[in-house]
């Protein structure tokens, strides 16, 4: 399908698939200005399954989401642990410093940890898709399994196996949950 589409796209400019950034360099060529695409982005669902993010976008998306989520969660947990560590007789400056120190440290730690998990996951998923040329639940499960195993590899085989199983189950659950959500909750 992919090969077919690319040749179609090359030959027929009027019925190309919708792509918002196509031909949109800053000096917009006037010949492209009003040649708006007439076909919908995806006609069949198989098409939308087939066309996925490129590996670079995949990498930045998972890593960025992981890092941001991890550091926000860590920083907000650190605020509470900083407040808990107040002692009697602390001045306001000391209190602010306690909060800043603990939230900064927790945010940094968790951001790095979850960001690395996202990086490994994106790499393995792109690799699996490139090898098997399929993208379904099992891709995510394999990627989650590999991510857990790599992330805990230094703690020994047993720990890596447990973490891999956990990662595979978690990734599969997320994908399955997303499909259930899509089917039953219409947004």
């Amino acid at each position, binding site marked *: 399908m992919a090969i077919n589409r690319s040749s179609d796209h090359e030959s027929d400019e009027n019925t190309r698939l919708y792509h918002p950034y196509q031909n949109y360099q*800053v000096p917009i*060529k006037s010949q492209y*200005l*009003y040649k*708006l695409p007439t076909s919908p982005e995806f006609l069949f669902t198989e098409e939308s399954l087939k066309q996925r993010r490129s590996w670079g976008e995949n990498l930045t998306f998972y890593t*960025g989401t992981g890092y941001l989520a991890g550091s926000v969660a860590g920083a907000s947990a650190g605020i509470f642990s900083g407040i808990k560590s107040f002692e009697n007789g602390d001045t306001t400056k000391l209190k602010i410093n306690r909060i*800043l120190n603990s939230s900064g440290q927790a945010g940094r730690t968790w*951001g790095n940890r979850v*960001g690395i998990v996202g*990086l490994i996951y994106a790499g393995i998923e792109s690799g699996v898709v490139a090898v098997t040329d399929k993208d379904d639940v099992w891709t995510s499960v394999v990627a989650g399994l590999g991510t857990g195993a790599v992330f805990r590899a230094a703690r020994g085989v047993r720990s890596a196996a447990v973490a891999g199983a956990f990662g595979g189950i978690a990734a599969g659950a997320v994908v399955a949950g997303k499909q259930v959500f899509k089917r039953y909750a219409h947004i």
Partner: protein
Amino acid sequence: MGTPESSREPCPDRILDDVGGAFAMGAVGGSAYHLIRGIYNSPGGARLSGGVQALRMSGPRSGGSFSVWGGLYSTFDCALVYARQKEDPWNSILSGAATGGFLSLRQGLGASARSALVGGVLLAMIEGVGIMLNKVQSTAHNEQFMEDHAATSLPYGMGQISGQSVPVPETSSSSSGSVSWFGSLFKKKKETEDHHSESRTHILESFDAPPVPTYEFK
């Protein structure tokens, strides 16, 4: 000109993109660096394990510091785009300075000012190189553009999209190819002021829906 930059993601998404890209770059590059350094610095017999340990300790950390820079930088960039309603090199320079200053705010005002200066100069250098590369490319691009334009443009060139700045098919765009770099830099600046009412939109498009094109003839 006043057009929003379309070679990158539109603005709020750019933050996520930059955070992820910077983290990936920093983590991969830092891992390679610390692996080699660890192998070199470990005693014989434990070289590989020492290298891997150094990688595990320092790889994520360098990724984190890269992504803090990238994320803050593009957050400031987007804030400046929204505040100033235009995208130009000054945004990058100012947000580089703001990032540098913000990151060392806890070391005191002096240290903050110093690292803001470093950040601004760094980003100014990067922007300068980018502008030069752009000039070199656009001189080649412009000639081709004018050829295409002469061949096909008349029926299309009549309409104007309201609210979106379109490169006006005027002859002055071709003259920038023949002037020197610095000359065209200054010339361009004056030109944008002339076309202010046309090329400056009320709210930048990256913050709301794209304008609906009208097919009215002028």
